[in-house]
């Protein structure tokens, strides 16, 4: 926690870039927090990823003004970390269901309307990986919105653009990604 604060205090990175030293720390922090929250709840309870990120943020920053200015940096790292955490969890659970065989999801055989949250996460992750090369900006927006749970306003402040810009970009990015899933899973789905 202190280490995260230290890095944030010192961070002068332009909006959007995540320093490599921050990421693993935030990753551990989030995992621990998630594990703790889940342990408190009874079986079957769910924990929203975005709520988790915000809670982690509050526990790191408290009321510290100096750090608040670097909020974006933290959320950027947290969104990336959440993506890893959620994908790891979904994979582990999926492999259990398939009798310990961690084979990749068979996208063709899925009905999008009927997919579980975990399968959804795996699909999004898979498509984001494919999209990364071609359109990294969209992948970033998806990371921040879907995994990080940031509001348009928060991202707009980080990037120094208007909220409206972020909203439109998000609409494009998610549609583009959805199209890829749609193509993979065939025609069995009703938009």
């Amino acid at each position, binding site marked *: 926690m202190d280490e995260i604060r230290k890095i944030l205090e010192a961070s002068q990175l332009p909006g959007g870039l995540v320093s490599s030293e921050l990421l693993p720390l935030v990753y551990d922090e989030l995992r621990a927090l998630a594990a703790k929250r889940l342990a408190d709840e009874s079986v079957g309870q769910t924990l929203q990823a975005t709520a988790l990120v915000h809670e982690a943020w509050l526990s790191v920053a408290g009321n510290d003004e100096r750090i608040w200015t670097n909020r974006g940096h933290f959320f950027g790292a947290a969104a990336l970390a959440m993506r890893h955490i959620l994908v790891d969890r979904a994979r582990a659970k999926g492999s259990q269901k398939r009798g310990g065989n961690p084979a990749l999801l068979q996208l063709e055989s899925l009905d999008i309307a009927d997919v579980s949250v975990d399968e959804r996460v795996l699909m999004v992750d898979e498509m984001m990986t494919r999209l990364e090369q071609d359109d990294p900006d969209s992948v970033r927006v998806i990371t921040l919105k879907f995994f990080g749970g940031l509001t348009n306003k928060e991202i707009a402040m980080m990037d120094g653009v208007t909220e409206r810009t972020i909203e439109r970009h998000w609409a494009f990015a998610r*549609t583009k990604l959805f199209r890829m899933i749609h193509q993979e899973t065939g025609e069995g789905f009703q938009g």
Partner: protein
Amino acid sequence: MNSQIDRLLFEAASSITSQEDRQAFLDFACQGDKALRDLIQELLELEGGAKEFFELEPTMENPAPVAGDEDSGIGARIGHYRLIDRLGAGGCGVVYLAEQQEPMKRKVALKIIRLGMDTESVIARFSMERESLALMDHPNIARVLDAGTTASGRPYFVMELVDGEKITDYCDRKRLGLSQRLELFIQVCEAIQHAHQKGVIHRDIKPSNVLVRDHDGRPVPKIIDFGIAKATSGGVEGEATFTRADQFLGTPAYMSPEQADGSGDIDTRSDIYSLGAMLCELLTGHPPFAHKDFKDRGVEQIRGMLREQETGVPSARLKAVGGEEMTSIAERRAVDPQRLPAELAGDLDWIVMKAIEKDRRRRYETANGLAMDVQRYLDEEPVLARPPSRRYLFSKLVRRNRVLFAASGVALFGLLAGLGVSTWLFFLEKDARQQQSRLRAEAEHARSMAEEARANEARMHQRAKAADVVTQAAVFVRYKEMDEADKLLSGLRADLIPASLEASNTLVAVANSNLAKGRWKEAADRFHALIHVLTSVDMKDTDANSREWLPAATAISEWGEPWQYEDFRRLAIRRFATSSNPIVAEHLLKVTLLQPADQETLKAIAPLAGVIEASLVGPNREKDDHLVAWRQFVLALLAYRQGDLETAAEWARLSSAATGNQPRTAASRVILAMIDLKQGRADDARQVLEKVHEEVRHWEAGPFQIESSYRISWSNWGVARILLREAEGMPGATEEKPPEEE
């Protein structure tokens, strides 16, 4: 596909609500590019579905208790362990409080290594180290109990649970003064010494790996993570400290330059460096290089810093800090800020500097040596570590003697033994085909290991004690307390004395002091011990090493036990009989032939005659009359011992004709006399022997000098006297008188 254009078109089109206008816009914008138009059209149609799809936020579920193998959720099970709570995160992983279920129920610490490490090789490296880790049994070392792989493929380690706080935090919180900190530090050194003797190097000693807690009102340190740094180092030894992205794992603030260099050539002295860096922080609040010094620097820059940049002595660096920070550093040590630098200046400065020498040969040789020096400081005794002016003298001695420091003799021995065994076990491990015989072998091995370990420990203990004694004696010698030094050394077994420059210098000094005081027997004993030191250090084939031999051989032959001379002769031959250096050859022949030798000995040293003869002929022949005469002398002596009297006489005549060294000439003449005796010219022989006898008596009558004003060593006279006694004992050497009873 240009995603920028796609995006612009999509955003623009989707903001147009009228279907008609939207189609018109797309017709215009796509300009007949049908694929593009179709794409945008499709995206627009999917927009609603996408919104819905992403509306469901990703969530995490509470894992069902039986799910079991989610690796780092609290409550999850990993192997025999159930995770209870998260204790903290370190450089390479997260540590959990866990409960072991079987074979017994107990709480342990479980460390899961961060993703991105090659699990298989981490586990393999750990298995190799396992056996030596198991040998460590020390109250200040946390045991590593187990290792394995989580369901998601991350390596984990299970350690004895240690309840305590980081040593630096503990000291600050308790406001421990300098001497309390030093006492705590000594305990840490002793634990590290134990590990080194078992062949385990920590490789990651730093404050956060030394946890302290109170036990009966006394602080007790415990060192954690033994064996883990090694297991998690890169695949090749050389990549030890770097991740694939070529970034340092953890902080280089406590890392020795050789470890940072990634050369892979790491020994126990790397841990000494880390101990020194930690001591620096305990004393001054900062390690030699502060964490901020490494900020924004690349790996190569950091390596360069550790290799070359001088840190300055701790007291001076503390003064440079100054101001408020200095005040708070001093307060945490219950010291007046004005006085803190002065308290550190001098001995403590030099102890730290010696421990963090960039050249590991100049560091303390063992953790024990470091601890002892700190203890000396606490006892207000003079410390070994000294400022450069004195070290300069020391290094001159090194150059003069060319006796290299043994690579921390004691610990290295343990290290090699440990590695050999664990490598063997590793291969054993691999051989799954013969499971049965493997198990049997392991059981037998475990038994013999335990026995060996006990014997080993006793031996190590003796060696460590001997090393301590030698170090203390060295201190006495420096302060000219020769009798005290001699007293300490007198109780040591020669074969236990560490092979170090310190030991050899100390022994020479003490032996000479005994000679000067006429304590011949004691001198012989010290010289005997010296030979063990000189011949067991791995050295180049230089005469600087063999130079001490003649006085040693003479003293041992004159005043030592017969077995001591035999022992000496055996060691000397084993070490140098294959030398091609004519000076070494001359020394060796001289010292091994002082007394009659058996056929085996003569055979072993015979090749050296060739080396010497070759040095006396040809264009490159030796021109120094003094050296030539000595070589002629030893050739005469060898031929005489071999029974080749003609050759012996030839060389002895040449040697006895040379001037400039009275005892050498005398000794050569004794050889001629002995030949005369054997060939029946007793009268000639007696005449010569009487004359030499007189010369020797004359020398004896004078005050004993290690070296005379003509730069002739006492041992040259010793050689003449030993040979003279031999000759006088031969039949016909003394006229008609029957030998007197002694």
